[in-house]
């Protein structure tokens, strides 16, 4: 995802002619360094990103990874130490936040407590000098969109967290910005509300067709809603891609560990032929992966827990599937599924200590009897395309 657009020589105030090919947001080598006393802290190091128009884009990472700083540089609340921020092609790196065509939804909502819901939502339109009757119409439309019609005269302090959240969303969306920036907007809500708001946000984004940039540390949230995700760590982008790509083909150990539960296995290649590599794991078991590697090289693979099948006896069949023996250490029944923790026999694969335990999720389909219990000896099996080899 290298930046391909030519720098457009336009001033801050004027926008270039709209074209669907121009990315809504482009970051070119953007970096931010904070200085506190003599110490320099690099919050964001030289990020290149292009976010297409109408895309639902997530910045995902643990706290302190630089995702919020990145978003605040797009909004104009932080000045980048290096690099260029472009909105629809126009360089806005040194443009004040009130002159940027993006709006933000804050984690704390930051609603104006002294104003009614109507005045909160109308704030941006009034600043832009929109005629009063148009303001009334558009605020009404927004209230309908977020299902808060009839609450115009209420003060935000008298509303629930979920309702305040929707006012904050309406206040930003009513301005029809070229991009909406959302900073962990669901962080303060409880689980049930958060899940319904995820669906709600996705619906609203589809309805209005505005680019959404979503900052979150919740991988489930990012996977559910996003068209594309940038996984960030230590101020840089570790991986950029669609939810499926990031989940199934993590680009690094960090991504594999951060997104969902993953099982890490490593060993030295015993056999490599026809695009398949095999290395021994456990007592008489072997791991197969679709990859190219030389015999003797050390490889590290990750397997998602739901890709693994659990057998009580050694499965038959050809040797192209991974088969690893182990002992059940933990069984957690969750209704729809059961989670098993299985300890590999004979220590870790290749005699090492890496990942002596694997996590396995099984679906509890109708008619299945009770599965293995704690202490049972089991065989784990999965197909080679699910052993994803991490880039070295």
């Amino acid at each position, binding site marked *: 995802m290298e930046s391909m657009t030519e720098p457009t020589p336009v001033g801050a105030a004027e926008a270039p002619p709209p074209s669907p090919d121009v990315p809504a947001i482009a970051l070119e080598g953007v970096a931010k360094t904070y200085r506190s006393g003599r110490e320099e802290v690099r919050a964001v190091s030289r990020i290149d990103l292009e976010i297409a128009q109408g895309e639902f884009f997530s910045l995902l990472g643990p706290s302190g990874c630089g995702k919020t700083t990145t978003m605040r540089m797009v*909004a*104009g*609340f932080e000045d980048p130490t290096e690099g260029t921020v472009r909105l629809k092609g126009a360089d806005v790196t040194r443009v*004040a*936040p*009130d*002159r940027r065509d*993006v*709006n*933000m939804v*804050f984690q*704390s909502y*930051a*609603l*104006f*407590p*002294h*104003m*009614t819901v109507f*005045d909160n939502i109308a*704030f*941006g339109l*009034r*600043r*832009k000098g929109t005629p009063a009757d148009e303001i009334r119409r558009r605020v009404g439309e927004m209230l309908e969109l977020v299902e808060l019609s009839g609450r115009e005269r209420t003060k935000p302090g008298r509303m629930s967290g979920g309702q305040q959240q929707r006012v904050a969303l309406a*206040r*930003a969306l009513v*301005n029809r910005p070229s991009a909406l920036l959302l900073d962990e907007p669901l962080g303060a809500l409880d689980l049930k509300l958060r899940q319904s708001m995820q669906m709600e946000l996705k619906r609203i984004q589809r309805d209005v067709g505005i680019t959404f940039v979503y900052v979150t540390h919740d991988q489930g949230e990012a996977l559910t809603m996003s068209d594309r995700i940038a996984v960030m760590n230590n101020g840089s982008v570790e991986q950029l891609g669609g939810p499926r790509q990031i989940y199934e083909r993590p680009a690094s150990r960090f991504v594999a560990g951060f997104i969902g539960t993953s099982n890490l296995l490593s060993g030295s290649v015993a056999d490599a032929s026809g695009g398949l590599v095999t290395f021994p794991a456990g007592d008489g078991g072997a791991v197969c992966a679709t990859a190219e590697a030389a015999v003797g090289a050390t490889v590290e693979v990750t397997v998602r827990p739901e890709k693994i099948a659990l057998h009580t006896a050694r499965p038959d069949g050809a040797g192209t599937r991974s088969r690893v023996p182990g002992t059940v250490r933990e069984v957690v029944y969750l209704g729809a599924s059961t989670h098993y923790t299985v300890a590999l026999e004979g220590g870790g694969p290749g005699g090492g200590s890496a990942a002596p335990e694997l996590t396995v999720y099984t679906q509890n389909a109708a008619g299945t009897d009770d599965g293995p219990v704690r202490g049972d000896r089991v065989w784990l099996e999965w197909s080679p395309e699910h052993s994803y080899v991490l880039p070295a």
Partner: protein
Amino acid sequence: MTDERRPRLAARAAPYLLVAPAWLWLALFFVVPIATILSMSLMSGNLYEGYSLTWEFGNYAAAIGTYWEQIGRSLVYGACATVLCILIGYPCAYWIAFRGGAYKNAYLLLLLLPMFVSFVLRTISWKAFLADEGVILGTLKGIGLLPEDAYVLNSAVAVVFGLAYNFLPFMVLPIYAVLERMDHRVVEAARDLYAGPVRAFTRVVLPMSLPGVFAGVIMTFIPTSADYVNATVLGGAHNTMVGKVIESQYLVNNAYPMAASITFVLMAVLLVGIFSYARALGTERVMEASAR
């Protein structure tokens, strides 16, 4: 039965027992003095023959008729000093709250430091500063910026300056308390919604801080209007405020009923003023108006 009731009774009485000292304090040092002054204001007589309660409402007519000028002057000076306190105090509170960083408490201490010196002493020292040939005026006259006969001392200006100087912290602290608590993301939200720095201030920060300004106005206007030290030390003979009148009626003329009725007139005027201020300029309405 009685064994069960006793602890319950104690539990029920506990809150009253806990507030009892406060009530006692208020009764002793507020209700009793107020009642004493009220009855005194309706008495007649003199120090040698004694005073008796004769429901002499004429005291009030005499108080207003004779001293309306001083009462009015007190209110005007108090109002001017209060406005001056807002003009100086608001930026000061804003700066400490938003730009003070790690040194907020140090700045607040600096603001309060003069309070450690006696109020009267500080006022008297202003006399030296503002003297006709003193540090400030003397220098300005020396370089020709002021005419030779210019003066500040013994004028209304000196009194208002003195009042504003002495009561500034009472304006800064409540405003600071409100600004300090304010979520700065709200200011960012205003900037994000196309408000420039000035608009963000007038539409969001200022209306949200009005309760602090309101408290500050009450905490400066009441004591400044009733103050007599500044008028006496800095104002000279022509700028007497009502506080001075009350003092001399009590201590010099021993006209206790007159002094008491002026006290009550001042109290009544201040109370009516504060209540009508609260109604007319109620923070709620100002805040709503600013939302447009």
